[in-house]
């Protein structure tokens, strides 16, 4: 009977220790995972901003993307604060939300950039055609006007009669 009791107590002790240890492991792992999620969210926001900047340089209107980036930035701040306060589950949840917004912004920024580049290419070729065509027409017209003017000027010069002024003194 004593042996059975001792065995049960030992078993319960081992079980309690294992429980305590596993709780510690889970807490540490939870914090690590949350920290890594917040790091990923930070990277995702930076990538989304870089994509937005590329779209802007290509000539796209990025006002809408900037609004959503501010939203992602706010959520990232909340995730960092939750992580700092030891609230791993909230930190991981906010980080996930932030990554979602950032990835959506990045996707839209890439689409906007491609569209802006297409538009810019069209505008470039249209203005190049206008410039080259316009210059060609202008030069031809100017040459024609110059020839006409020169001919008229020469004719006018040849038609002039020399005047002799008498010296009255």
């Amino acid at each position: 009977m004593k042996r059975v009791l001792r065995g049960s107590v030992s078993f319960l002790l081992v079980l309690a220790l294992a429980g305590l240890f596993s709780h510690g492991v889970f807490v540490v792992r939870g914090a690590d995972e949350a920290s890594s999620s917040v790091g990923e969210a930070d990277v995702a926001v930076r990538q989304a901003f870089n994509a937005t900047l590329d779209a802007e340089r290509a000539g796209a209107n990025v006002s809408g993307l900037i609004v959503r980036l501010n939203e992602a930035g706010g959520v990232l701040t909340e995730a960092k604060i939750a992580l700092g306060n030891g609230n791993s589950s909230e930190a991981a949840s906010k980080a996930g939300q932030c990554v979602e917004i950032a990835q959506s912004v990045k996707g839209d920024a890439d689409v906007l950039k491609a569209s802006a580049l297409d538009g810019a290419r069209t505008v470039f070729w249209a203005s190049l055609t206008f410039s080259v065509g316009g210059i060609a027409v202008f030069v031809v017209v100017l040459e024609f006007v110059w020839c006409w003017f020169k001919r008229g000027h020469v004719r006018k010069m040849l038609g002039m009669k020399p005047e002799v002024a008498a010296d009255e003194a």
Partner: protein
Amino acid sequence: MKLEDYKIVFATVGLIGVLILASPTLGLVLHLPGGEKFSELWVLGLGHMAEDYPFNVTAGVSYLVYVGVGNHMGSSTYYVVYVKFRNETEPLPNVTTGAPSVLAPLYEYRVFLEDGGNSDVPLAFSFYNVSFSGGQSTVGGLTINGVPFIVDKSVSWDPVNRGYFFQLFMELWIYDPASDGFSFHNRFVTRWLNMTASV
């Protein structure tokens, strides 16, 4: 006027015409340097005005200021504003060397702005665990926008200005896409706060 003089007039008109007609394409290809690039950081009191700043503060009362950022960097910019808290012996950022304060930030704002854009965000703060003893005031904690932070800072009585002076300050950091990192943008704003037992 001689024919040669008319020729010069025609050539000049021709050159001006060519430049005018080429200007749409040149405008797309040539990029002239823009104006001076800079950022703004400011702090405003209640009503978004440079007045009604909290100065005499006490524990358990919430105070509100607005932190603003303006972007004139020529393109969209990603900023981080760090909120820090110090006593009179702890360092502020060094404007000469461009180094930030070594104090750890308590709170941060992430702000994305288009060129020419500005934004101001509310900064609500209150103090807790404030004590006074032996000519010293100690602040145990500071709550910023509802988030509590343990600060545990003390200041001695200032006999000249007659108060216990702490300082709340904000640093502006900017994201550099080339290095994929943030750097101190050499701008900060401060607010002196006189801790009192009751206002």
